[in-house]
């Protein structure tokens, strides 16, 4: 908070409550604010939670794509990559969350109750469920790879099915978590933030898989599948994001206007979504991209997905500090 009072003595431009404006019309509903001070408070989440949002999406997305692959593509390499991706992404998730807690030693209290109207309560249980089923699926995958032949495929398919709801929830609940608050930027996009994050989970999972398979030399067919899935996912992500911004209007400024806007447009949208969309849709239409291009595109998509979550958190903090935004949201 700058040492100077936020309320200059002489008449201010933007209608903040000024110490001595001469005319005060009783009828203007929410023209002023209380010295420009925040009304609501943003959460204290920073890098640990942002990173968890990223890994959670891959963990959930990995499991979902793995299951889809298992039932719809008979592409063992893809299923294996997805299972291992899901396991790799699920392992760091709980520690990230626990470290972020004010009292980490009480992390088990997250499972002390079940509260259906609390996205955080639902998320805690979903993460637990996903850890279980992702563990089983990955465990069976490891056994299969060690033995050279599929082990207990039936159990693996059951786990895949049973784990699906938890995985889907973990994919997108991080968006819902932000939406079910009073931060104007998030609350005003209640029905779009979740979908955007789930789409982003799909696109980053596809990117991660094409990265893994690109490096480990997956077949050409898998690459086409991923390109087609990726095109759909990135298109959905970009559309939902733009719809959200349209819906937000002025309330979206913390995200779209400088300073965060200077990162959002070029990195999150440009490099993170539009570029991968071009490359993927090209691939779908048969364009042969070099391995280097495909890997670079995957990395861009992944970094774009991380930046989306990072900017959404930091823009949320800024949005909560603007009383006029909150009054705009609540009192109009």
């Amino acid at each position, binding site marked *: 908070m700058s040492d100077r009072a936020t309320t200059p003595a002489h008449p201010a431009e933007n209608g903040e409550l000024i110490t001595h404006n001469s005319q005060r019309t009783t009828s203007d509903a929410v023209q002023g604010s209380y010295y420009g001070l925040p009304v609501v408070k943003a959460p204290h989440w920073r890098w640990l939670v942002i990173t968890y949002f990223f890994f959670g999406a891959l963990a959930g997305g990995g499991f979902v794509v793995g299951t889809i692959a298992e039932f719809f593509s008979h592409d063992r390499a893809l299923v294996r990559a997805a299972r291992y991706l899901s396991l790799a992404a699920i392992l760091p998730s709980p520690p990230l969350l626990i470290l972020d807690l004010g009292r980490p030693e009480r992390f088990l209290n997250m499972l*002390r*109750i*079940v*509260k*259906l109207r*609390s996205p955080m309560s639902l998320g805690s249980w979903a993460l637990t469920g996903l850890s279980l089923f992702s563990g089983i699926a990955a465990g069976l995958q490891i056994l299969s790879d060690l033995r050279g032949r599929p082990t207990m495929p039936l159990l693996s398919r059951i786990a895949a099915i049973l784990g699906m709801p938890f995985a889907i929830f973990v994919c997108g609940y991080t968006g819902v978590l932000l939406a079910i608050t009073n931060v104007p930027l998030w609350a005003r996009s209640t029905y779009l933030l979740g979908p955007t994050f789930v789409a982003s989970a799909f696109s980053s999972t596809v990117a991660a898989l094409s990265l893994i398979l690109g490096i480990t030399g997956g077949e050409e067919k898998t690459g086409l599948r991923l390109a087609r899935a990726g095109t759909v996912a990135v298109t959905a992500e970009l559309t939902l994001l733009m719809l959200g911004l349209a819906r937000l209007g002025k309330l979206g400024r913390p995200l779209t206007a400088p300073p965060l806007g200077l990162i959002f447009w070029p990195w999150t949208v440009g490099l993170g979504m539009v570029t991968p969309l071009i490359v993927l849709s090209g691939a779908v239409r048969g364009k042969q991209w070099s391995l280097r291009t495909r890997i670079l595109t995957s990395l861009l998509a992944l970094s774009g997905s991380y930046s989306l979550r990072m900017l959404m958190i930091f823009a949320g903090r800024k949005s909560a500090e603007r009383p006029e935004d909150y009054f705009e949201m609540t009192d109009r």
Partner: protein
Amino acid sequence: MLSKKRSLGDIIRSHVGIVPERPLSPNTLRIQSRLEGAEVGVSVCPYCAVGCSQLVYHRDGTVLSIEGNYESFINGGTLCPKGAATYGLVVNPNRLTTVKYRAPGSDHWEDVSLDWAMERIAQLTKETRDRTFVHQTPDGKTVNRTTGIAHLGGATLDNEENYVIKKLFTAGLGMVYVENQARI
């Protein structure tokens, strides 16, 4: 506190649901104020002259809470911000607890014993008084006074304190420079 025993069904219902509102912890069931088993004395607020009556809750020699006294016709349990902060005045790490002494010209305090300080102050008082005591003025009027020693303060002190100060300093030592805030 809730006294009745909670059945297993109650516990589950209170922990799982759309919005389970009362998943109480063991401590919450036994909640009580920190005045349990405390003693209470009645005091007068040391700040302004409205004279609000204060309840001083204490136990084993430490103050627990200082609040307004409902029974007083002046404040009826209420207090102003200073009165409400009296606990912070009494229980305060900045409170002086030792006698500090600064030798002439020194740039620091030394901690000294109360006894040493009292003896030294008595010596200084006697020495200064003997040097400046006037029994009679040149024109023969008995005055019995000293203008070498002065006293200042008293508006925040008790009546009994001001009484013995005036009695010793004026009637006993002949000091005439005895003053307090009532004038400034």
